[in-house]
């Protein structure tokens, strides 16, 4: 008996045409879920706060450089190619600078010693790391 032919006949019996339909529908639904749940929404606005007050709201689309004064000195923020980062900051540990580029809604870089935060918003925020 040809075992290969045999197993193929069995598989055909086990998997009826509708089962293939269910399988592919299931795979399609998983694809949709991955798209909805795993893709953070694209950000479109940068919100820069200084000393707890909104210093500036700027669109992400236009490249620019922003200088914000704080108690320690000046913080420089760069907007480039739909991303934003803190380029230089007088804070001693440089956490917000080392965070690098932010591109998704809900991402935040906080320069605590200089009392400045850079937040991305747009669409629906995937999560709010400051409040939760």
């Amino acid at each position, binding site marked *: 008996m040809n075992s290969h032919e045999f197993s193929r006949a*069995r598989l055909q019996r086990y998997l009826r*045409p*509708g089962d293939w339909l*269910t*399988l592919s529908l299931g795979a399609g639904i*998983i694809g949709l879920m991955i798209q909805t*749940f*795993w893709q953070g929404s694209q950000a479109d606005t940068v919100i820069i706060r200084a000393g707890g007050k909104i210093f500036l709201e700027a669109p992400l689309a236009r490249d620019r450089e922003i200088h914000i004064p704080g108690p320690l000195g000046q913080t420089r923020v760069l907007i480039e190619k739909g991303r934003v980062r803190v380029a230089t900051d007088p804070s001693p540990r440089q956490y917000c600078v080392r965070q690098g580029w932010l591109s998704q809604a809900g991402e935040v870089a906080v320069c605590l010693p200089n009392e400045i935060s850079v937040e991305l918003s747009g669409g629906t925020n995937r999560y709010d790391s400051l409040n939760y």
Partner: protein
Amino acid sequence: MTASTIKLDTSPEDHHIAKMAAVALGLSVLEGAIPSPLPGVKPGLANIVTLIVLARYGWRAAVWVSLLRVVAGSLLFGNFLAPGFFLSLSGALFSLLALAASLALPARWFGPVSQSILAAFAHIAGQLLIVFLWLIPHSGVAYLIPVFATAALLFGTANGLIAAHFMDNARDNPAESSS
């Protein structure tokens, strides 16, 4: 004082259900020994039994076997009325509802594999509902949905194929299955 005995009248159907529930229970315990990368991602081998019972004895028997397995299993694992028990129960109830709905599908086109996949998806839906409504009411749970759904599809398909294989064997050797 006279010794009294309580005698329950059991039908052959009760015996079948008890036997099948015992097999399902054995599979759950066996499966408990398999390490899982993520809590909740399990093969759900006991569902093979549920599928076979559904095909052979109907939906009512499948409900019995499934719920007996959940309750007796929780007693064995020691989590009766603990969160894990309610997760299992909710998953099992949703699966059973999905299986009831799947009976409406034409059997010529849809076999145990479809039923198994539908039940697996319903199972995670039931569990995630409990997780979201009661245990972890945070939208971060949504992040795990694709992982659970992928596991459901893979294990659902595998369990369906195994159930189909057993039903096929039973059809080829009816003497063996009647014992």
